[in-house]
């Protein structure tokens, strides 16, 4: 298409990197020595060292899930990855103290600006460690903790250890085991009982080094009746070699608490993004995952909620945009573990060019439960003839008075609709972009305003040149 872009946005926003000046480097490859190196540098307590070593064994013994997953996983060369890289800095509380390179990186991405505008706190991770971490004073006074996971583990062990690894066991899958072995960075949030954090907390994850694996670990605990919204954004420059991002995110919503977790993933197109995300919702608690996957080479991510308490509610709203050469293998898991629990999954995907979007889901209602409900809707939009979409849900229902419904549809942008808009003076690209934005509109509207605008612009960008 020779059309001018619909919106003037810098396409290469995240595609820059600074020279590496790391003080700590665990070297290439993974063995027990790597684990000991990470533990020594991070001054991990002994229980964490044991935890990591056991996880390493689990990682080494578990096969890749290639019997159902993409064989592209075979292209990850675990022996060529650098598992820990840090400049040796402690996370800074003041933006002025952050080293220049790192500061410039995040300023280019607009992070401190966003904080000033409307965030309740920000954490910014550069490669393995947090570079900046701050929570607004009034929240700190109320007892809200928002720090990097390393700091959380050292300074708040009584809360951290109680929930760490409890929602996602080490052996859950090969990548949760890998993360458990080499985890570094990520966020630790604790919201005391009854505290409602009005503005979102945000974390930003940045990979700056080539051949690097980022393994952040996030643990968020909302105590009884507390409420919190957390947003994360991710970028990396495009390197010649593939990069691995394998996070573990655990959410704990205690009785009556509410957690909303928003992800806008826009990794560069050579990042393997293999993430395990799961929440535990106690009685009458509510967890909502809003998951938006635009970047990466392969994303495998199925946010889940274990509905452990009566009347708990889980929700996953997800948008996946798979462009040329990308595979967005995303979905949701709802594990009903108590009576009258309800869950809702809405997934929308768009495949452009040779992109492939897959929905993979699990809804599980065991026999001892009654009055549980689930609703799942998956819609896929295909833009080009080579585009591909798949849907693989698994639904297991037993018990009394439980009901589940699942619907999925696949369609293309209607030619009549495009023609209609062209008749009214829009270019084909503009018409297509408008149609796609219309397709995801009801979901995007649930995002915080700044994010919904950003997301719509990203969709516009991805639609450039995709028509025809």
């Amino acid at each position: 298409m020779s059309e001018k872009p619909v919106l003037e946005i810098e396409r290469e926003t995240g595609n820059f990197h600074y020279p590496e000046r790391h003080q700590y480097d665990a070297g290439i490859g993974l063995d027990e020595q790597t684990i000991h190196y990470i533990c020594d540098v991070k001054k991990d307590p002994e229980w964490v060292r044991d935890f990591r070593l056991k996880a390493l064994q689990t990682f080494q013994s578990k096969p890749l899930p290639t019997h159902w997953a993409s064989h592209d996983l075979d292209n990850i060369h675990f022996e060529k990855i650098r598992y820990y890289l840090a400049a040796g800095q402690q996370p800074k509380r003041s933006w002025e103290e952050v080293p220049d390179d790192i500061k410039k990186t995040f300023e280019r991405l607009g992070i401190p600006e966003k904080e000033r505008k409307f965030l309740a706190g920000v954490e910014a991770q550069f490669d393995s460690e947090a570079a900046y971490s701050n929570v607004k004073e009034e929240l700190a006074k109320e007892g809200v903790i928002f720090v990097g996971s390393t700091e959380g583990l050292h300074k708040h062990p009584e809360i951290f250890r109680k929930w760490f690894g409890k929602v996602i066991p080490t052996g859950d899958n090969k990548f949760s085991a890998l993360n458990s072995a080499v985890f570094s960075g990520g966020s630790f949030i604790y919201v005391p009982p009854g505290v409602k954090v009005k503005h979102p907390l945000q974390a930003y994850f940045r990979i700056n080094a080539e051949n690097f694996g980022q393994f952040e670990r996030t643990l968020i605990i909302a105590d009884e009746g507390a409420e919190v919204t957390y947003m994360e954004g991710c970028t990396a420059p495009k390197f010649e070699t593939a990069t691995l991002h394998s996070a573990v995110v655990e959410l704990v919503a205690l009785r009556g608490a509410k957690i909303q977790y928003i992800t806008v993933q826009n990794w560069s197109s050579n990042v393997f993004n293999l993430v395990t995300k799961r929440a535990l919702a106690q009685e009458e608690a509510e967890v909502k995952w809003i998951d938006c996957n635009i970047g990466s080479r392969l994303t495998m991510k199925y946010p889940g909620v274990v509905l452990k308490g009566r009347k708990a509610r889980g929700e996953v709203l997800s948008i996946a945009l798979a462009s040329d050469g990308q595979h967005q293998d995303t979905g949701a898991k709802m594990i009903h573990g108590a009576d009258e629990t309800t869950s809702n999954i809405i997934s929308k995907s768009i495949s452009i060019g040779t992109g492939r979007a897959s929905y993979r889901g699990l809804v599980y209602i065991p026999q001892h439960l009654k009055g549980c409900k689930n609703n799942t809707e998956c819609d896929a939009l295909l833009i080009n003839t080579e585009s591909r979409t798949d849907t693989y849900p698994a639904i297991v229902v037993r018990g009394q008075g439980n009901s589940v419904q699942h619907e999925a549809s696949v369609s293309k942008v209607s030619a009549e609709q495009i023609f209609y808009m062209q008749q009214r003076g829009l270019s084909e690209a503009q018409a297509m972009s408008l149609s796609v934005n219309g397709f995801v509109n009801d979901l995007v509207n649930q995002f915080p305003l700044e994010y919904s605008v950003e997301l719509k612009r990203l969709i516009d960008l991805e639609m450039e040149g995709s028509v025809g």
Partner: protein
Amino acid sequence: MNSIINGPQAFNFSNLPSSWQARQKVAWEKYQKISMPHRKDEDWRFANIQSIQLNSYQYGTATSESEKEEILKQSQVPFPTAARLVFSNDERVACDLTNSDLKKKGVIITTLLEAVKNHSSLIENYFLKQRVALGSEKFTALHETFCRSGSVIYVPAGVEVQQPIVIFQWLSGKNQSVFPHTIVVTEANSKVTVLEICQSTEELPGFVCSYNDLVAKEGSHLTYVCAQRWSEKVLAFHMGATTVERDAYAKTLMVNFGTAFSRNENRSRLTAPGAQSEMLAMSLAHENQEFDQRTLQDHLAPNAWSDLLYKNSLNHGAKSIFQGLIRVEPGAKQTDAYQTNRNLLLSGEAEADSMPGLEILNDDVKCSHGATTGQVEEELLFYMQARGIPENQAKHLLVVGFLEEVVARLNEPEIASYLHTLIEEKFERSEKIVWQKKAVSNSPASKTEVDVKALQGAV
């Protein structure tokens, strides 16, 4: 008596042509090379693999003459038929062509063995030429190893067979096994309806491993119904492959009433523009019956249509598994494909597992699938009870109504009426059952165990 797991050499197949025996040996070698399905195989997810034990099943016990007489008496349907084929333990009992005109028109209705001898081109062209390949490849090889019986129906171009052709498959005696094969070919612009009724002479354990090859050629109309009401102690595999060519229409209906465990695999291949395929199934299960259903709507050509409707009504501790896939190949533009799985749970112990799937490799399509699982609505029961209908009767009516959508889609009033009779018979059996609940622990420990198990596996 030898077990089937000893292979074909343990049995006397000397009456079969030598080429057939050679084929059986090759198939047996293939069977031995393929490993038994494992619960971790995606195609066997949620299935009760442990119930597949083949050691005790024997093969080839002849049915006595008196039994055959009784079987012939029982092999009746309450409507006129074009032909009737009756088999017991893979032996031909009868092959009656009611309408002699059909033979004149070139219609072939015969047994598999006869076809091997007299219509070898039909066997060469169609016998196991299309593979279902939805997980039971090992059992397809086992079928080929022991297959020596079945029906071959060939309808020449332009011929319409007005009345249904009915096939009876009987399983007689304890631990017997059968491997029936059905080939139905409709040439251009022809039409036929085939009803296969599968049943046991007594409530005894047995093993069934059947395979269908259905081919609807250009502009033809093929309807195939399999009503399986084997003994509820039987282990059964029913595999079926349907090829639908240009502007042809194929409709299949699988009715599940019998067996302890049955695995149904059905694949419909739409190979040319204008092809239409309707895949239907209904199951009425009670006690610990398990129906494992796997389907594939395989769109290989543009401008084709397929629609699937699988409905399961599950009582007591019964379980259904549905794994269906609509696959649209890159060149298959303007595809219309739909898939619906609905499950009705009549008790808290019943389980429905549903895995409706889509794999779409072309943008110019309309595809959707839906799955629901729920219970009988309390409000509906209350409404009917308030009008003097007892609860059991009300539930019965609601289940009949639930299944009626499938029966009506068949659009064959006489067969539909016959199926209603079978549904009522199944209800009568259900009502006589004093259901013993399986021990279920509700202790917190066991709940945690369930959760962890469900969580494991994927990223």
